[in-house]
């Protein structure tokens, strides 16, 4: 028997997917045909980047520390402790860093974008921009998506570096390893092919976090209740898409590079 709720939810899901696809088209159309809002773009970069630094910093150091502390005894048992810096660094740079920092970014910045745009929709601020012929899509969406696309890879680089430092602190607590030795071991088996796919996929993560969060906020409805729902939907949908893109990226990297 067909459950009407499942049919309704499927319909909503398909409509959202179509809506996001048309939002992507609209984004590129506005990016190349309308005036670029440079000042607002810089403001959004500041908000997305600088204001996420503390969260990324704390998480990155803990990530490096925890990974090192947990893996060290296993590698020590196998007599392969010297491989620890390289193992931690590669796992952080290629996989854990991009995914974990992107999820944090979706939680902090994505929810903020969703809630802010939804609130502007509910209080008719977006309508006011449209009526005064000022292209709100350009000012509100293009700037936020561009900021998320550019800032997230930079945050991931920064987070990777701090995780590296965290890993050194974790190892230093148990051994007398010097920083130059730790550094050379970390980079001993590290190649361009490790960092290139990770950076590319992070750009896509940032772009889709920006697009999905903006979409959820821009088309919010149902008053103040809608603001909360938009923020929530922005985080859930962005996080899910990060995992799906990551799976896709791993497959493509595997096919192309190995």
């Amino acid at each position, binding site marked *: 028997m067909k459950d009407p709720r499942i049919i309704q939810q499927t319909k909503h899901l398909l409509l959202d997917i179509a809506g996001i696809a048309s939002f992507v088209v609209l984004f590129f159309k506005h990016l190349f045909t309308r005036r670029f809002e440079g000042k607002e773009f810089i403001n959004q970069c500041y908000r997305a980047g600088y204001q996420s630094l503390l969260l990324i910093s704390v998480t990155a150091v803990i990530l490096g520390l925890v990974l090192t502390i947990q893996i060290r005894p296993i590698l020590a048992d196998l007599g392969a402790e010297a491989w620890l810096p390289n193992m931690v660094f590669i796992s952080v740079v290629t996989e854990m860093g991009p995914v974990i920092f992107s999820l944090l970014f979706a939680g902090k910045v994505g929810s903020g974008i969703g809630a802010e745009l939804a609130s502007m929709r509910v209080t008719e601020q977006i309508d006011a921009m449209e009526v005064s*012929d*000022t292209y709100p899509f350009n000012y509100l969406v293009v700037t936020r998506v561009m900021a998320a696309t550019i800032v997230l890879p930079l945050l991931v680089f920064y987070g990777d570096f701090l995780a590296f430092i965290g890993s050194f602190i974790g190892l230093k607590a148990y051994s007398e390893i010097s920083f130059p030795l730790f550094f050379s071991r970390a980079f001993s088996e590290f190649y361009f092919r490790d960092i290139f796919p990770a950076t590319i996929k992070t750009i896509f993560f940032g772009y889709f976090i920006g697009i999905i969060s903006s979409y959820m906020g821009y088309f919010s409805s149902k008053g103040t209740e809608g603001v909360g729902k938009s923020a929530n939907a922005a985080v859930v949908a962005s996080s899910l898409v990060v995992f799906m893109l990551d799976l896709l990226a791993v497959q493509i990297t595997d096919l192309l590079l190995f």
Partner: protein
Amino acid sequence: MTNNLIVHISDLKKAFSGSVVLDGITMELHEGENLVILGQSGTGKSVIMKCIVKLMEADEGQINVFGTEMTNCSAKELSSVRSRIGYLFQEGALYDSMNVRENLLFPVLRNKESRKKSIKELTELAEFHLENVGLIEAIDMMPAELSGGMKKRAGLARTLMLSPELIIYDEPTTGLDPYRTEAISDLIVQIQEKYNTSSLIITHDIKCAKITGNRLTVLHDGKLIANGSFESLSGDKQPEVQLFFK
């Protein structure tokens, strides 16, 4: 007031999820006229206005604004019509992240014509309009620091920045005390006289309607059921009309 038609709506219909909100609205607004649409909450007054500026699409009917058919106009035509309309939203719709000065400068800095002016000239223009609505002291304040009436006045100053020929007022006195209701209503009349604009005012406040309207029309159950001056409508026998005059 002249005989030139600014807005002409014929047989406008709009429904949401099967529920009919507007059922064959026909009305017109002349140049220099202040037309008040009276109606209880939820009768679709705002929907008419949003269809006029194409924030919503009409299901059926024609809407002609400044000679442009809005139901099938191009993006360029829509942009041209919108640049001649000012819209004062119910709560002012000030942009939260900007102070009053930035709110006023936002549309003019993105308008092809006014962008040619220097920042100094535009700032002076903003100060001039804020002076006119009695809000010059709030120029550097954020929207969150303003009262309901101040937000509406700041919103009105923002709509004046683009020198509109038609101003749409969406419930301009809702949520205000009687003193502020009268002040805002007087301001609407002053603006109309000073800038020679035409106005569409939607309200359920009879005091505001009396002060501002040259002509009143009453919306009930998706239909316009009465039309005329304040005096003629006050003598109308229909209970839905009398409801406002009690």
